[in-house]
C-alpha cells in the first residue's frame, strides 16, 4: 500500500490556482522530498494533505484512506506535521509538558507522564526541559519539541515543512540526524518540503522538483548526488545550490 497517493491534484486559494495536475505516489517507509523555490506550491501540497488547505480537486489518499477536505480526528493518528518556524509552532503560554500532553488529552490516551518522558528522551531532550516555556528554549530545542509533539500520537506518516531552514548549520545537523534516526527506528514515511538540495541528499530517497505549481521532474536521490537530473530547471537549481569547495574536505 502506498503511504501517500496524489491524483490530479489541483489546489486553489480563492481565485488563484496554486497547483496543477499533481500526481505522486510515495511508498510506505520512503523518505520523499518536494523541492522547489518560493511560489512553487510545495508547501501548499503538504497543507492540502494535512487538511489545512481545503480548496482542492482530485484525489489524496494516505495509507489507503481517502482524505476529506478538512482536518480529521482519525487522520491525526496516522499522519502529523512538523512546521518550519520553531519560533511560531509552539504555543507561547504552554510548557513543553502541556504541548506534548495536548494530543494525548484530545484522544484520551493515558499514561501521560511516562509517554512524555519517553518522547523527550527519544528526541534527545533532557528531563529538565519538561516544564519550560518556549521562550526558555533555543531554536534547535524548540524544533525537537515540535518533532516530539508530532510523534506523540504515533503516526506512520510525517509531513515536514522545511524542518531545518530556520536553524543554524550546527543545529541543523543535529536535527537532521535525529530525523534520520527516528525514521529508521519507527519505520516512518517522510514527505519533506525543502529548497535545500544537500538536505535532500542526506535525508531522502526520492524527490520531485516543483515549479509554478507543477511537478517538472521526479528523480531518485542517486541522480541528484551524481548531478544527473534531467529537467533543465532542475539542473539550474542544482547548479545554483552547488557547493563545490566543501566537497574536497569530506572524509
Amino acid at each position, binding site marked *: 500500500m502506498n503511504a501517500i497517493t496524489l491524483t490530479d491534484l489541483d489546489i486553489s486559494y480563492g481565485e488563484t490556482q496554486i497547483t496543477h495536475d499533481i500526481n505522486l505516489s510515495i511508498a510506505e517507509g520512503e523518505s520523499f522530498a518536494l523541492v522547489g523555490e518560493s511560489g512553487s506550491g510545495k508547501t501548499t501540497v503538504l497543507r492540502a494533505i*494535512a*487538511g*489545512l488547505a481545503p480548496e482542492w480537486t482530485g484525489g489524496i489518499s494516505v495509507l489507503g484512506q481517502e482524505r476529506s477536505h478538512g*482536518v*480529521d*480526528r*482519525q*487522520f*491525526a493518528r496516522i499522519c*502529523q*506535521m512538523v*512546521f*518550519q*518556524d520553531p519560533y*511560531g*509552532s*509552539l*504555543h*507561547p*503560554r504552554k*510548557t513543553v*509538558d*502541556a504541548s506534548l500532553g*495536548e*494530543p494525548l488529552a*484530545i*484522544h484520551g490516551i493515558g499514561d501521560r507522564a511516562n509517554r512524555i518522558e519517553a518522547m523527550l528522551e527519544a528526541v534527545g531532550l533532557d528531563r*529538565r*526541559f*519538561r*516544564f*519550560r*516555556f*518556549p*521562550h*526558555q528554549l533555543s531554536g534547535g530545542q524548540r524544533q525537537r519539541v*515540535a518533532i516530539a*509533539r508530532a510523534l506523540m*500520537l504515533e503516526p506512520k506518516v510525517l509531513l515536514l515543512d522545511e524542518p531545518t531552514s530556520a536553524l543554524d548549520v550546527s543545529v541543523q545537523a543535529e536535527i537532521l540526524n535525529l530525523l534520520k534516526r527516528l525514521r529508521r527506528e519507527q519505520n516512518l514515511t517522510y514527505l519533506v518540503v525543502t529548497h535545500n538540495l544537500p538536505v535532500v541528499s542526506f535525508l531522502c530517497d526520492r524527490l520531485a522538483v516543483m515549479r509554478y505549481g507543477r511537478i517538472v521532474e521526479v528523480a531518485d536521490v542517486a541522480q541528484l548526488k551524481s548531478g544527473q537530473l534531467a529537467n533543465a530547471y532542475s539542473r539550474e537549481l542544482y547548479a545554483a545550490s552547488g557547493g563545490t569547495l566543501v566537497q574536497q574536505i569530506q572524509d
Partner: protein
Amino acid sequence: MASTRAWLLDDSPTSLLQANLGRSYRIVLALMRNPLAVIGAIIIFVLIITALFAPLIAPFSPIGQDLANRLQPPGGTHWMGTDELGRDIFSRIVYGARITLTIVALVAVIAAPVGLLVGAIAGYFGGWVDRVMMGITDVFLSMPKLILALAFVAALGPGIENAIIAIAITAWPAYARIARAETLTFRHSEFIAAVQLQGASPFRIIVRHILPLCTSSMIIRVTLDMAGIILTAAGLGFIGLGAQPPLPEWGAMISRGRSFILDQWWVATMPGFAIILVSLGFCFLGDGLRDVLDPKQGDKL
C-alpha cells in the same frame, strides 16, 4: 525566603505549578521595577484593605446623622469634616470604598468574560459568525456609554445593582473588539494549525489555546477601564440614578455637596479626591501592566 525565590526562578521547573508560579513571579518582579506601577498597586491595595476593614477603620457610622454638627470643616474629630446631615465624611468615604470596589469588580467580572468569548469566537471562526457577532458588538459600541447606561437604569429603575448591569452592558463591546483583534493575530499561526491537526475541536482550541493568549491585553484594558467605570458610576450617582441615599457612594456625595461647594468645599471635594486617587491608581497599574505584558516583548511572559 531566599530558597523560595530560587525555587521560583529555577530555570528547569519540575512541575507545572512551579513553572506557572515562576512565570507569575517574574511578571511581578518586572512590574515592581516601575515606580508608578508600584504606586498604583499600593493605592489599589489600600482601596481593597479599606473596603474590607471599613468597620474597623471608620471612626463614625456612615449613616448616623448628627444635625447639631452639620457642615463642620475638617478638623480633629472629623478628619474630612461633616456633610449637611452631620455625617462624618471620612467614614462615608471609607464605606464608599466598598461600593466602588463592588461596582468595579462586578462590572469587570460580567463584561470581560462576555466580551472575551464573543471576540474570540468571532475571530476564530471568521466568515458570517464574525460578521454577525461584530455587527451586534458594533450596535452597542456605537451608542454613547453614559447615555446607554442612563437609558438602562431609567428603564430598570435606579439602584446600585441596575447601575452595575447598565455599565457592564456598555463595557463589554470594547473587550470583544480587543479579543477579536488578538485572536486574529495568531489565528493562522503554526501552533494553532498544529493543535487543529491533532484533531482538537474548535471549542477546545478557543478555550484552551486562544483565550489564554488574550488574557494579557484583556487584563490591561480592564485595569485601565476601571477609572472610566468609576467615573461612569459616579456620574450615574451624581444624577441620582445609581446608588440611592443613604448609601455613601462617592458620586452621589459629590452631587449632594454641590449646593455647598462655595462655603463648605469639603463636602464635595473630599469624595472627588477619593475618585481621582483611585482612578489614578488603576491607570498607573494598568500602564505598568501594559509595559510588562506587552506582546511585542514576546512571549517572554
